[in-house]
């Protein structure tokens, strides 16, 4: 018990001096939870909107928008957590491409009854592994994803040739009727809640390669989604450079442009964005 207390005190002392410096998520799950922690435990009153999506939107950056896109996760998870958040932004931009992915109930429950506000050392940002990786990396995880993207590995044509079959295979299988109905019902339920709380909800689709969009799962989902939400037109973002690194994820230029487009949807003029 003595060792436990000593290490805990050292950890707390380190956190109080180092603050938020030197952090790197060990996995997508941890990164997603840190995004959510940052949103829930920080004051975002200056932000106009929230982006809720998946890895397709995770690299988008806009100074007036909070990005709650979960890599390898579900946009529905973020929507569920938003419903219990104390502060809600004016606009919620929801990426509709993969909105059928199942909710991570455990993550939702974690944020419903959370001890981490009282005990910051329990936050994912401060996990020893996150701190260790941060220390090895030698600098903090940059919270501006466009900068991260610049420094990330160069995805070239060979990589795309390797990754594209993965996304084609994923999208080749149709959703079961149960998966489809559950996802649509959850979207409906959460959107009604959020609109009831005064937020404006906008659905958007990120551009992905035609070869992938043509797969049965995407076709099935898009058709069902449009039919289920006749009063919520889905915005197709007009991006001039739609090239992707792997069939579904936009390259750097596309992401920068997507940030501007989403800002416009939320009512923020491009000039204002560039000015920041």
């Amino acid at each position, binding site marked *: *018990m*003595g*060792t*436990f*207390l*000593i*290490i*805990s005190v050292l*950890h707390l002392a380190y956190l109080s001096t180092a603050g938020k410096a030197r952090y*790197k998520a*060990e*996995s*997508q*799950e*941890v990164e997603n939870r840190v995004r959510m922690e940052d949103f829930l435990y920080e004051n975002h009153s200056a932000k106009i909107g929230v982006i809720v999506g998946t890895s397709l939107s995770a690299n988008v950056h806009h100074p007036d928008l909070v990005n709650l896109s979960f890599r*390898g996760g579900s946009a529905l998870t973020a929507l569920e957590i938003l419903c219990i958040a104390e502060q809600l932004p004016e606009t919620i931009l929801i990426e509709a491409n993969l909105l059928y992915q199942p909710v991570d109930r*455990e*993550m939702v429950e*974690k944020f419903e009854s959370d001890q981490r506000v009282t005990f910051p*050392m*329990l936050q994912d940002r*401060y*996990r*020893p*592994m996150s701190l*260790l*990786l941060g220390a*090895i990396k030698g600098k903090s995880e940059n919270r501006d994803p466009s900068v991260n993207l610049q420094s990330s*590995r160069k995805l070239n044509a*060979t*990589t795309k*040739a*390797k*990754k594209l*079959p*993965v*996304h084609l*295979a*994923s999208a080749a299988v149709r959703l079961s009727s149960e998966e489809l109905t559950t996802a649509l019902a959850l979207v409906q339920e959460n959107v009604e809640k959020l609109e009831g709380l005064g937020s404006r909800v906008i659905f958007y689709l990120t551009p992905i390669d035609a070869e992938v969009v043509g797969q049965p799962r995407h076709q099935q989902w898009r058709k069902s989604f449009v039919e289920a939400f006749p009063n919520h037109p889905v915005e197709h973002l007009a991006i001039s450079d739609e090239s992707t690194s792997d069939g579904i994820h936009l390259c750097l230029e596309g992401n920068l442009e997507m940030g501007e487009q989403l800002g416009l949807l939320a009512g923020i003029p491009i000039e204002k964005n560039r000015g920041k």
Partner: protein
Amino acid sequence: MLFTTIEFAMLVAIAFSIFYLVRGVFAQVGILLIASIVFYAFSSPWLTLLLLASAIFTSWSSYEINQADTAKKRKIIACVGVMLNIFVLVFFKYAGLLVRSLENLTGASLSGAEWLVMLPLPIGISFYTFQGISMLIDTFRDSRNSQEASEVYRSGQSLGESLYYGSFYVIFFPQLVAGPVVKAKDFFPQIKVKSISQINWRLVTHSLVVGFFLKLVIANNLQNQTFWIKYPYIIGMSADRAWTLLIGYSCQIFADFAGYSLIAIGIAALFGYRLPDNFNYPYLSASIAEFWRRWHISLSSWLKDYLYIPLGGNRKGSFRTYLHLLIVMVLGGLWHGAAWSYLIWGAYHGLLLGVERATGLASARKGMVPGMLGTWTRYVVIFLLVSLGWSFFKLPDITHAGLFISQAFTAWESSVAQKKEVIVVATYCLPVLLYHLNYKLKFTKTRPYLVPVAYGVMLYAIVVNGASADAFIYFQF
């Protein structure tokens, strides 16, 4: 109900506080029976009926074996009891696989048998049916040696008592859903009045701290990395990444299952019961045969006692010995899951055992490289061979497993291993390595002050670096 949930902690706390307040073995066993039913019914209320029916039927059969006046009667009852347990296991676990395989073989659609595919898999069915079979066989063997005191039955036990204590043996909650598989002859002698002063707190502390650390910190965090060993993500995966993740999975599956077993041992010890050790530093094995003496010991021992030796073991010539090894390993593989990849995994180990036996490598402690270096080389080779076999565990579709293995050996030219992934996997595998090294190099024996330090570090890691409480890998079996 998972061991890592607050509901389970509450169940144990309530059962523990009442258990030592009541007097007499009957009442104490009653508390544990109720706790076991609550534990199982929490996640599978309807399937609890199957569990209870199975436990009661097996206990009744055992009682009848004990009461039968002729050897022939005893044999018939024992055979019927064993067959029924096997039937329950096959029906709920393998019917779907058989239907799908028949459809694939004949090309015909067996739409009338679709309900068999949809049958729910009762949690822990492989474990509790094996324990049931153990009770029947042990009772039968006991009854043949009537001059010796029975290890399973006390003289004068009534039918009611037999059903009561027999059911308790089958459904005792710490080991109900994923073992260790306890043999009846080892468990029944422990059914006595327990007092709080008899608790082995050292065993409880060690088992629970190390068990929860292995599960929450190592296995669950590694799971977030090894998640990528999954179709379609394995398409185009580089060889170095495949090996990094596979080694991570080897450590994950050990941490997950050894963690579960330790927690089960710790919880059972709280109630005064000693469950058998299930792992003995398996990744320090110099041969596959040694690996199976160290990995999932309770299952290996069960298969040896109730399958390998009754088949004839190694007493019927070389050919039959190899055949018996293959049969036992194939069935042991299939026991893990209703997919052909588990059968292949079993056959893979059976073949390796056969090769070892034929070449004399199983018994020889020295390999081609002499001394300490030779021993450690063998540890590494066996670890890699075992790790390769886990591909069939992680990817139950044989074609996916084949693709993954081929990538692990061929995709070197397009290597894109990520530094971060290697660091994370290596860091989480390090405690598993230290755990094994401690056994070999005896750090904690020569420096006992390290023990409380290690417990403190593990507790701290559980609190601040534990990952989500996912189900244990072996729960699906």
